[in-house]
C-alpha cells in the first residue's frame, strides 16, 4: 500500500520535487502562523520564518542529493554483496555461468547467422527497392518461371514502375596473355547494372546502352581481379585484354567488396552482346522468345509499391500472351518479389528452426538455474526470514536476489559471447556455400546487443521465481517446520520446472531425430548412378578457333587420350553433369500425340557421349546405348530414362517411339528423333525426392558445347587431376581445365545444407538432454537430502531398501511421465513445422518418436536413480540423527 504509492513517486522526478516543495511550504506556513500569533506583522513573520529556516533552494538541493546517492549506494551495496555470495559458492557459480554461457553463446552464434543471412540488407543502394522479376507459368499449378530475352526487352521497354530493369547470366571466360590461361567467372548483364544497384565503379565507368549491341566487347573488372591479375594498374581503363581469344576493352573497375550476384564470386562483368550474335546457322539467343533462362532485377521508382509493379507487369505479360500465343500462352502473368527474399528464401525455414531450437536450449538452461537458485534460496531461507523479521524491506530483499541473478546472467552472457565467436569459427566452414551470405556472419553490434538483451531476460526468467518465493519467507513457519525442505519436490514450482525441462528436451530430441532420419534417407537415396571413383572437369573451346566439326574432333581426341591414362577405367562426357549446377528443360512434341506449341510437354534434356552411361554406372534397361555411328549423317536418335518412359509413355514400350525435341543443332530444323534405348533414372540434383524424366541426345548430333568430362578411375580420383591437365595441355595449351571435382565432392556440396542443419540440431538436442539430466539429478538429490530423517524413520520401521527406492523414484517417475506426455504432444506439432525441410518420410515417424521418448525416459530414470540409490543405501541410524 504505502510501498506502491512510494514506488510511483520514485520514478517521477517532477512529482517528487513537487512534494518536496509542498512539504517545505507547509513548514514555512506553520512557522509564519506561529510568528503572527507571537505578534509579528505579516512582513516580519515571513522574513523571520525564512531566516530561521535557512536557504530554501539549498535545502531542496540537499534533499534531492539524498535521493540519488542512496539509490546508487544501495545498488553498489547489492552488487558487492551479490559478488560475495557468488564467490562463496564457487561450485554453484561455475555451473550456472557455464550453463548460461552455453545457452547464451549458442543463441548468439545462431543469431549472428540469421542476422547475416536473413536480416542484413543487400549491399546496394536502397536495397528494399530492389525486386526480382520473372514470369508466372500457368500450366497445371501456377509456378514461378524465368524470362526469355525478348520478353525481358518488352518488360524493360513497356513498364512504368521501374527506374531500371536489368538482367544477366553467368559466363565463364578464359583470360590469356597475362601468364598461364586463367578461367574467369563472370556475369553478362544488360547495360545499366551499376546504376540499377546504385553503385559507381571506382575507376572508369559502367556500360553504355550502345554496348549491349552485337559486336561490343567491353568489361568491368572486379576490384580483387584488378589487384591480383593486373597489379592494381591505374592505367587499366581503356586497355584491351583477351578473353576467350577476343579483344575486350576494360572500361571500369568495380569498388572493393562489390559482388553481383550477391553470393557468386564474380571476377568481371560484361554485356549481353554475345547473346545478340548469331551462332553459325542459328538465331541469336536474344531473339528466342521461347528460351526461358533469365531472372530480372528491377529498382522500383520512388513511391511505387510492389503491388503496383505487379499490376503493371501483369498487363504487359497478358499483352505478350496475346501477341505471341505460340510461346507466351502459358505465361500470362509476371511475378515480382523483393530481391532479398528471393535470394535467401530457401534458407529461411531451416535458420528459423535452428533459432527456435537454440532458444529452447536456453529455456532449459534457465529452468536448471532457477531450480539451483531455488534450492540455494531454501538454504538461505532462515537467514532471509530473520532479516525480514528484523525489518529488511521486502523490496530490498527481492532487489538483492535479482541483482545476484543479473550478475550471474551478465557473467554468463560475457562468457557466452566469447564462446559464440569461437563457435562461429568452427561452424561456418561446415555450412560452406550451402547457405547464401553465411560467410559474412560475425559478431557485430546488433548481435552483441541481442546477447545483452538475452542475458537480462534470462536473469529475470530464472531470478524472479526464487526471489519472489524467498521474499515471502515466513519466519515463524520456517523455524517451526524443520522438515519443510523435504517438500520441495512437491513444490509445484520446482516440479513444474523439471517437467518443463523434460518436455522441451523431448521436443528437441525428436526434432533432431527426424532430421537425422531424413539425412540418412537423403544420403542413402538412390542417385541412379555410382558416384564413387569419378573425377569430373569442364573446359571450353572458343568459337573463333574451333568450328563445330573441329570441336567434335577435338573432343574425340580428348576422350581417347584421357581413356589411355593409367588409372582410368572409362571416360564419358555429358552436359549437364549430374550433381552439377546446370539444368535445361526443353519442350518436345510426341509424334503420336502432337500438340500446339503452347501445349507441348517438356522435360530435362542432356547430351552425352556413347560411353557416358557406362562410365557413370547407369544401367541399360531396354534397347541400346549410343554408338560412334550416331552422328550428324545418321538418323536422329534419343535415349530416355525410365522416369521419362513412365511419365510420357506409361505402360507402353517406348523403343521406336518418335518425338520432335525443341532443341536442335545449329542450322537444323526441328526433326523427329527415334528413341532407341531406355536407361536407369539418374538424379540431377541430390535433393530431388526422385529422379526426374530426362532425354539424352548423342553429343555428335547436338554439339552445343564440349560436354563435361567424367573419368571413372581405379585409383582415388583426385590423384589423376594433374595428368588430366597435362593431357589437355598437350592437345591445346590455351584450353584451360576448370571445375575439377570428384563426384563425391559434388554430392557433399549438394547435401551440405541439410547436413549443416541436422548436425547443429543434433548438438542442441544433446545439450538439452544433458542439461535436463543435470536438472533432474539436482532436484532429486536435493529432495532426498531433505527427506533424510523421514527415510531414516521408515527404514527403522522396517522398510526395505527396495521400498525406499520405490518411494523416492515414484515422484520422479510422475514428473517424467507428465513431461514425456506433454513433450510427445508438442513433438507432433514441431514435426509438422519441420515437414518442409525433411527429405521424404513422415514428420510423425513412429520409430523416431518412440526412440526419442525412450532416450529421454532412460536419461531421466538414470538421473533420478543415482540419488535414490544413495538414499536407499543410507544407514538408518545415521539418517535418524540427521537434522
Amino acid at each position: 500500500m504505502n510501498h506502491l504509492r512510494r514506488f510511483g513517486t520514485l520514478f517521477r522526478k517532477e512529482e517528487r520535487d513537487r512534494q518536496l516543495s509542498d512539504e517545505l511550504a507547509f513548514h514555512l506556513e506553520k512557522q509564519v502562523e506561529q510568528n503572527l500569533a507571537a505578534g509579528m506583522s505579516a512582513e516580519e513573520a515571513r522574513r523571520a520564518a525564512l531566516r530561521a529556516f535557512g536557504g530554501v533552494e539549498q535545502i531542496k538541493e540537499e534533499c534531492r542529493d539524498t535521493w540519488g546517492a542512496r539509490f546508487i549506494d544501495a545498488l553498489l551495496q547489492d552488487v558487492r554483496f551479490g559478488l560475495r555470495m557468488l564467490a562463496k559458492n564457487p561450485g554453484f557459480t561455475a555451473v550456472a555461468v557455464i550453463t548460461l554461457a552455453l545457452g547464451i553463446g549458442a543463441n548468439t552464434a545462431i543469431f549472428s547467422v540469421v542476422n547475416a543471412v536473413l536480416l542484413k540488407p543487400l549491399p546496394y543502394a536502397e536495397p528494399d527497392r530492389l525486386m526480382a522479376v520473372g514470369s508466372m507459368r500457368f500450366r497445371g499449378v501456377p509456378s514461378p518461371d524465368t524470362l526469355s530475352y525478348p520478353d525481358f526487352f518488352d518488360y524493360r521497354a513497356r513498364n512504368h514502375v521501374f527506374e531500371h530493369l536489368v538482367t544477366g547470366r553467368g559466363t565463364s571466360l578464359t583470360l590469356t596473355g597475362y601468364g598461364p590461361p586463367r578461367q574467369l567467372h563472370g556475369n553478362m548483364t544488360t547495360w545499366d547494372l551499376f546504376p540499377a544497384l546504385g553503385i559507381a565503379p571506382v575507376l572508369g565507368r559502367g556500360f553504355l546502352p550502345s554496348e549491349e549491341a552485337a559486336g561490343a566487347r567491353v568489361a568491368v573488372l572486379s576490384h580483387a581481379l584488378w589487384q591480383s591479375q593486373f597489379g592494381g594498374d591505374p592505367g587499366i581503363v581503356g586497355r584491351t585484354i583477351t578473353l576467350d581469344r577476343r579483344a575486350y576493352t576494360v572500361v571500369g573497375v568495380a569498388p572493393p567488396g562489390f559482388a553481383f550476384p550477391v553470393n557468386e564470386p564474380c571476377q568481371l562483368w560484361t554485356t549481353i552482346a554475345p547473346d545478340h550474335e548469331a551462332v553459325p546457322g542459328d538465331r541469336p539467343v536474344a531473339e528466342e522468345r521461347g528460351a526461358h533462362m533469365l531472372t530480372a532485377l528491377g529498382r522500383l521508382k520512388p513511391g511505387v509499391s510492389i503491388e503496383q509493379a505487379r499490376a503493371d507487369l501483369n498487363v504487359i505479360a497478358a499483352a505478350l500472351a496475346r501477341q505471341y500465343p505460340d510461346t507466351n500462352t502459358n505465361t500470362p502473368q509476371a511475378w515480382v518479389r523483393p530481391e532479398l527474399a528471393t535470394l535467401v528464401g530457401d534458407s529461411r525455414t531451416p535458420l528459423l528452426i535452428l533459432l527456435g531450437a537454440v532458444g529452447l536450449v536456453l529455456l532449459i538452461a534457465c529452468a536448471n538455474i532457477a531450480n539451483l537458485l531455488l534450492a540455494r534460496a531454501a538454504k538461505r531461507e532462515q537467514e532471509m526470514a530473520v532479516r525480514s523479521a528484523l525489518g529488511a524491506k521486502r523490496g530490498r530483499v527481492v532487489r538483492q536476489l535479482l541483482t545476484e541473478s543479473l550478475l550471474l546472467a551478465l557473467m554468463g552472457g560475457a562468457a557466452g559471447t566469447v564462446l559464440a565467436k569461437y563457435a562461429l569459427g568452427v561452424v561456418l566452414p561446415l555450412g560452406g556455400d550451402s547457405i547464401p551470405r553465411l560467410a559474412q556472419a560475425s559478431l557485430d553490434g546488433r548481435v552483441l546487443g541481442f546477447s545483452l538483451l538475452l542475458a537480462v531476460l534470462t536473469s529475470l526468467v530464472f531470478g524472479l521465481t526464487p526471489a519472489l518465493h524467498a521474499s515471502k519467507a515466513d519466519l515463524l513457519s520456517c523455524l517451526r517446520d524443520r522438515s519443510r525442505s523435504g517438500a520441495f519436490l512437491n513444490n509445484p514450482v520446482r516440479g513444474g520446472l523439471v517437467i518443463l525441462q523434460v518436455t522441451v528436451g523431448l521436443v528437441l530430441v525428436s526434432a533432431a531425430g527426424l532430421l537425422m532420419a531424413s539425412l540418412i534417407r537423403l544420403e542413402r537415396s538412390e542417385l541412379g548412378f555410382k558416384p564413387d571413383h569419378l573425377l569430373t572437369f569442364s573446359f571450353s573451346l572458343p568459337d573463333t578457333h574451333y568450328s563445330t566439326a573441329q570441336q567434335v574432333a577435338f573432343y574425340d581426341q580428348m576422350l581417347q587420350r584421357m581413356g589411355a591414362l593409367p588409372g582410368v577405367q572409362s571416360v564419358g562426357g555429358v552436359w549437364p553433369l549430374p550433381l552439377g549446377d546446370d539444368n535445361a528443360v526443353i519442350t518436345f512434341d510426341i509424334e503420336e500425340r502432337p500438340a500446339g506449341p503452347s501445349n507441348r510437354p517438356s522435360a530435362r534434356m542432356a547430351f552425352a557421349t556413347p560411353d557416358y552411361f557406362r562410365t557413370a554406372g547407369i544401367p541399360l534397361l531396354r534397347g541400346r546405348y549410343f554408338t560412334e555411328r550416331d552422328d550428324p549423317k545418321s538418323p536422329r536418335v534419343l535415349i530416355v530414362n525410365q522416369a521419362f518412359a513412365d511419365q510420357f509413355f506409361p505402360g507402353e514400350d517406348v523403343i521406336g517411339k518418335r518425338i520432335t525435341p525443341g532443341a536442335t543443332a545449329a542450322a537444323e530444323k526441328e526433326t523427329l528423333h527415334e528413341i532407341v534405348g531406355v536407361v536407369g533414372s539418374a538424379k540431377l540434383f541430390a535433393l530431388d525426392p526422385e529422379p526426374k524424366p530426362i532425354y539424352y541426345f548423342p553429343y555428335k548430333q547436338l554439339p552445343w558445347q564440349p560436354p563435361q568430362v567424367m573419368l571413372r578411375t581405379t585409383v582415388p580420383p583426385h590423384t589423376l587431376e594433374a595428368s588430366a591437365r597435362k593431357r589437355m595441355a598437350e592437345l591445346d595449351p590455351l584450353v584451360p581445365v576448370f571445375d575439377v571435382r570428384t563426384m563425391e565432392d559434388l554430392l557433399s556440396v549438394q547435401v551440405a545444407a541439410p547436413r549443416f542443419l541436422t548436425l547443429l540440431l543434433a548438438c542442441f538436442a544433446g545439450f538439452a538432454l544433458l542439461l535436463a539430466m543435470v536438472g533432474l539429478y539436482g532436484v532429486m538429490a536435493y529432495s532426498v537430502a531433505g527427506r533424510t530423517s523421514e527415510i531414516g524413520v521408515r527404514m527403522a520401521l522396517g522398510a526395505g531398501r527396495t521400498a525406499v527406492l520405490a518411494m523416492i523414484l515414484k515422484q520422479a517417475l510422475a514428473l517424467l511421465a507428465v513431461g514425456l506426455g506433454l513433450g510427445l504432444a508438442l513433438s507432433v506439432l514441431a514435426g509438422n513445422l519441420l515437414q518442409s525441410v525433411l527429405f521424404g518420410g513422415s514428420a510423425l515417424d513412429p520409430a523416431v518418436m518412440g526412440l526419442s521418448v525412450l532416450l529421454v525416459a532412460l536419461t531421466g530414470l538414470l538421473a533420478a536413480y543415482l540419488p535414490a540409490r544413495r538414499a536407499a543405501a543410507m544407514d538408518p541410524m545415521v539418517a535418524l540423527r540427521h537434522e
Partner: protein
Amino acid sequence: MGKAIDLLQGTLDLLILKTLALEPMHGWGISQRIQQISRDSLQVQQGSLYPALHRLEQQGWIESEWGASENNRKAKYYRLTEAGRQQLEVETAKWERLSVAVTQILQTA
C-alpha cells in the same frame, strides 16, 4: 570541521528517531518537539531537518505518508519503521556508552 558536522548529523538523526518513537509526526512538528525537548538549547537551522529526514527515509529507518494536518491541510507525516526502532536502540546505546566514557575522562582529568 568535518568531525563536528558528522557529530551533528548523527545527533540530529538520533533526535529525529527519538522524536518519532513517541508518535508519527510531520517535519514542522518534529522541529517544534526537538526545540521543546532540548529546551531551545540546540540551535539547528530548521531547514537542515529535511535533508536528514529524507536521508533517514532512504535508509529505511523511517517511512512517510501524506495525511491531513490539524487544520486539514496536506502534510507529510513520518513514522518510525521496525528497522528504525532497532536502529534507535542501537544508536542510543552507543550514545550512552560514549557519554559515559567522555564523562569518565572529564572526571579523571
